């Protein structure tokens, strides 16, 4: 479903991605691991459409269509979802209001009618219950005063509501205690489906104990330098990135 072909990306003239190739198949959970500064977060931002990055070469195809030319909101409507490493606060906007606005904006873009309020509420309640999110949180302004764990759970809740084609998880495990990690991972696992793919970006093997990847990519200096099975992540945990980084250099 997702094909990244020979992707070159710069920010302020500095090369971050250097001819990256990557494929995520339907139903697949792909993990990307790599040392700091290898370009993992950049990859997720470029796929989602953040404008600070300059794509100098290459393509990102979603179901065969190059999405680099379309706006972030259009990509969202086509099913790209990014769970942010640092979810952004929107003061004064109730979480519920934000969720409804996003969902209906995407439905509108796809030519569907707005969801009725009762239907919407039902969806939200179910998602909140499965992620152990206190319903009172939905009345609070989005992410304002939320703990790190609450913010990450809210990201997964949004993903559950928006039902994307491709879920990009950018270091969703950072800042989570072990209980929160389990809740978040269960949330993601519940969303695994034959018509959905995941790209899970993480530093640590820990998350992958809970979200079992089908494939693990190791990234360094803006390229995928090794691809393997879940075993590869375990090996990394033991030996570190040194061998791979040295190879790439």
């Amino acid at each position, binding site marked *: 479903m997702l094909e990244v072909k020979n992707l070159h990306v710069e920010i302020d003239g500095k090369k971050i991605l250097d001819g990256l190739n990557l494929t995520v198949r339907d139903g697949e959970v792909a993990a990307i691991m790599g040392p700091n500064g290898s370009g993992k977060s950049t990859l997720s931002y470029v796929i989602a459409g953040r404008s600070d990055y300059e794509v100098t070469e290459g393509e990102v195809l979603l179901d065969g269509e190059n999405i680099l030319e379309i706006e972030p909101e259009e990509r969202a409507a086509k099913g790209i979802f990014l769970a942010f490493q640092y979810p952004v606060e929107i003061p*004064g906007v109730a979480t519920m209001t934000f969720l409804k606005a996003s969902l209906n904006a995407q439905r509108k873009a796809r030519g569907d009618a707005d969801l009725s309020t009762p239907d919407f509420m039902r969806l939200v309640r179910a998602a909140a219950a499965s992620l152990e999110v206190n319903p009172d949180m939905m009345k609070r302004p989005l992410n304002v005063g939320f703990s790190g764990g609450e913010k990450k759970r809210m990201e997964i809740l949004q993903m559950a509501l928006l039902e994307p084609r491709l879920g990009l998880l950018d270091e969703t495990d950072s800042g989570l205690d072990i209980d929160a990690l389990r809740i978040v991972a269960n949330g993601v696992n519940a969303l695994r489906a034959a018509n959905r793919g995941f790209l899970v970006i993480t530093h640590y093997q820990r998350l992958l104990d809970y979200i079992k990847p089908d494939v693990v990519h190791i990234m360094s200096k803006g390229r995928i330098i090794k691809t393997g099975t879940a075993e590869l992540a375990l090996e990394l945990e033991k030996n570190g990135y040194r061998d791979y980084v040295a190879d790439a250099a």
Partner: protein
Amino acid sequence: MAAVQETVDHVKSLDVTEYKYGFVSNIESEKSPKGLSEETVRFISAKKNEPAWLTEWRLDAYRRWLTMPSPDWSRVNHPPIDYQDLYYYSAPKSTPGPKSIDDVDPELLRVYEKLGIPLREQELLAGVQTSKVAVDAVFDSVSVATTFKTELAKFGVIFCSFSEAVHNHPELVKKYLGSVVPVTDNYFATLNSAVFSDGSFVYIPPGVRCPMELSTYFRINEPNTGQFERTLIVADKGAYVSYLEGCTAPKRDENQLHAAVVELVALEDAEIKYSTVQNWYPGDADGKGGIYNFVTKRGDCREDNAKISWTQVETGSAITWKYPSCILRGDNSRGEFYSIAISNGKQQVDSGTKMVHLGKNTTSRIISKGIAAGRSDNTYRGLVSAHRKATNARNFTNCDSLLIGEHCGAHTVPYIEAKTATAVFEHEATTSKISEDQLFYCRQRGLSGEEATALIVNGFVRDVLQQLPMEFAVEAQKLIAISLEGSVG
């Protein structure tokens, strides 16, 4: 409902012909001479059959106005206004306006459609020049007022045009007119005192809680005409009233002057809540056209335990110069000011409030949210003062500014003067920008840049929106989205 329908039918039968006559036949005679002179002032006063004392009052204002300099202390720029090039009494158009809805700028119609104003009213707002539409308009507005009157009379509430009040309640007008905003108050208020055309008058008798929201809808229609309305609201002892004011104007290339005066008087234990949604035409993207909105609004908590609350949503006008204020004269009286001021394009806003603490244990609260986009300038200017005798005066002020884009400005100019050591004044101010992070986050979830901006701005102003009556809050939210169109990207 039946009673309302009856009134509507009655008014229709009465006023349609009368107005038609007035509109078509009296055009020439209703036109005042262009320019401002004693003759103009007398002309207006004579047109309204005013008593001699009011004519003199106007002339006195006019003579004082001649000696006053135009104020230059606010952070707004505009070419000097040629007061001799204006009409001071509602004169009909000299050039033909749009003949039907088809001739009206579709952009304008789109805006009204978004506001949820029905088509016939859209025609009206766009200044379509057919007698049928105009008659409907007048019919509509009269019927509303009349319906109110019938209902309100049961409670002893007076709600009528200012001109009617001059004739039917001269004792009240004479007692309160100019008692809050004196004739000599400031350049634009003095000008208004000389030439004001009409406006609203409200009186709530002692102990009466006005059973419905009172509302007036202002519209500047004619080109080359200054609009000078005058509103006077008096809440007698223990009375309560909530008053709503809406403003729009059609699109014109030239600037139009609007210099209104609003006076509120709250006696012992009385409360007045005054809400405004101001959407005068702001001019086009290059700053051409638009209303110069130079307005003096002031409330007097004249006796103990009185309360006056201003809520305003300012989205329109090329220039806004407006400081709704409270004189906290009575002991334990309270003043409030809640404001949302949005500027886009080349709009200039210099707005704020004055809270003048004179009585003991007086309290005031100011929540101001300024949003600047485009190449606009948005200034909050506020005064909080405590007189020597205002022991235990309390004020809390919160001024937040939000910037959208790189070319706008937000300024906060607070003046704080305490002449008693027992006063406690708090002032908080923040300036922030809608961040790229926030925009990207929202767009990643499927919202367009404009939807995202509107959502973030609505969050920013939520504290103030909550102060508005429900219907106005909805309208205000839509207005915010509309007035920020084109501010992103």
